[in-house]
């Protein structure tokens, strides 16, 4: 294709081609701290004009690549960063086989990870971004990769995709304006702005960590904590995984081991501050338990 770049996030390598120059420049800037050298990629993503005419007139980006969804709606060129993000997500969701892929966010401290999973809008992404600014290592806001052989968490720390109210919250949290991407307004998901993780988190993205705590956060609810049974964790995680079935026996072994080996809690919290505090508290309680 006319314009292209390579991006490596965690263990996954992408080749991105585009009919326009602008999206590639934006990606190079947003991913400047990630390895960008040419490799044999795991996935190819294409940001292509829906028709020859659409390269120039009201340009529309169709989301394509090794794996595509039929009938997917195109996006205007001004939202090409979102198109790229969705296309990369789609490759991972449909094509990744090396790890059990969980739709979840994660942070770690002292080599041990908290995994947070829940439906879109539950706040897992923002919570991981907040924790990533407060002494935790950011491991990813969208996908958590679980190694079936070692049981370890493999980071996938792509830029955080902040939506709507979370944008202001993180702008308040992060002083360095340079870490934010452009504001994308009127996208199908509302307003979106990307936040580059701290350079340390990106630098450590090949280092695996031990899972220690599984959380099911729910934002905007009165504070509550509930123990989650292993069976419920198991079912919820099969539904939060896009490749559980495809991994077959390896997926089964990985997930049954995972839910049996770490504690799980559902937490409801009213705002980000409360969320952070509850994670910290649960974390220290777990620490006590592990030491005892």
């Amino acid at each position, binding site marked *: 294709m006319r314009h292209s770049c390579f991006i490596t996030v965690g263990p996954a390598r992408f080749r991105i081609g585009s009919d326009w120059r602008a999206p590639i420049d934006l990606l190079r800037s947003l991913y400047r701290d990630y390895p960008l050298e040419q490799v044999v990629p795991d996935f190819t993503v294409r940001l292509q004009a829906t028709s020859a005419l659409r390269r120039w007139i009201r340009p529309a980006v169709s989301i394509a690549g090794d794996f595509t969804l039929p009938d997917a*709606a195109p996006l205007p060129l001004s939202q090409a960063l979102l198109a790229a993000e969705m296309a990369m997500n789609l490759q991972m969701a449909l094509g990744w086989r090396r790890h059990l892929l969980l739709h979840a966010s994660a942070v770690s401290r002292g080599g041990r990870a908290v995994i947070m999973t829940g439906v879109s809008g539950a706040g897992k992404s923002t919570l991981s971004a907040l924790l990533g600014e407060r002494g935790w290592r950011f491991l990813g806001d969208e996908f958590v990769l679980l190694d079936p052989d070692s049981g370890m968490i493999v980071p996938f720390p792509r830029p955080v995709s902040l939506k709507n109210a979370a944008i202001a919250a993180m702008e308040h949290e992060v002083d360095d304006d340079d870490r934010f991407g452009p504001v994308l307004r009127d996208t199908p998901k509302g307003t979106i702005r990307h936040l580059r993780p701290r350079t340390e988190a990106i630098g450590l993205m090949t280092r695996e960590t031990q899972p220690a705590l599984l959380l099911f956060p729910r934002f905007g609810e009165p504070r509550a*904590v*509930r123990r989650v*049974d292993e069976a419920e964790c198991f079912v919820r995680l099969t539904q939060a995984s896009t490749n559980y079935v495809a991994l077959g026996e390896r997926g089964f072994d990985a997930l049954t081991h995972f839910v049996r080996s770490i504690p799980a809690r559902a937490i409801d919290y009213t705002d980000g501050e409360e969320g952070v505090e509850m994670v910290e508290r*649960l974390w220290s309680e777990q620490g006590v338990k592990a030491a005892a």
Partner: protein
Amino acid sequence: MMDANEDSHGGNKSACSDGGDALGKTSRRTLLIGAVATSAVVSIRPALAQAAGSVLNCMIPVPEHGNGKFIDAAGKLVSPDTPGAFPPSPRDFTGEEVHQALQGRNLPGTSREQSRAYLNYIRKLQNGQSGFTCYASLQMPRR
């Protein structure tokens, strides 16, 4: 402070079903066998909702490749001079719009008859035609 509602449930490894004879209890374990009409098995299915969600809306063009054809009331592609036939839609419809139209609302920017004709076209979509997947996913029962 935590676990207020379920502290009674004990440690991480809860009392599992193999407890009975191993612990040498005097009374035998009771096995609950359910009822004729119930089920005791849940099968895990592929979950791609997140993936589908991450590409937002799907689109249905009406029609796929117009070639200048119009759409009659039954949803068939006909020549433009057919009485009562509607021109191709200038824009694709989203899955959500079609979903609402199936429940009685008009497709955006169309008259009642036009909307009905377009919907009839959409219902006739065959596997492999563009828009079919989108339409089929709207139709799947949500139990």
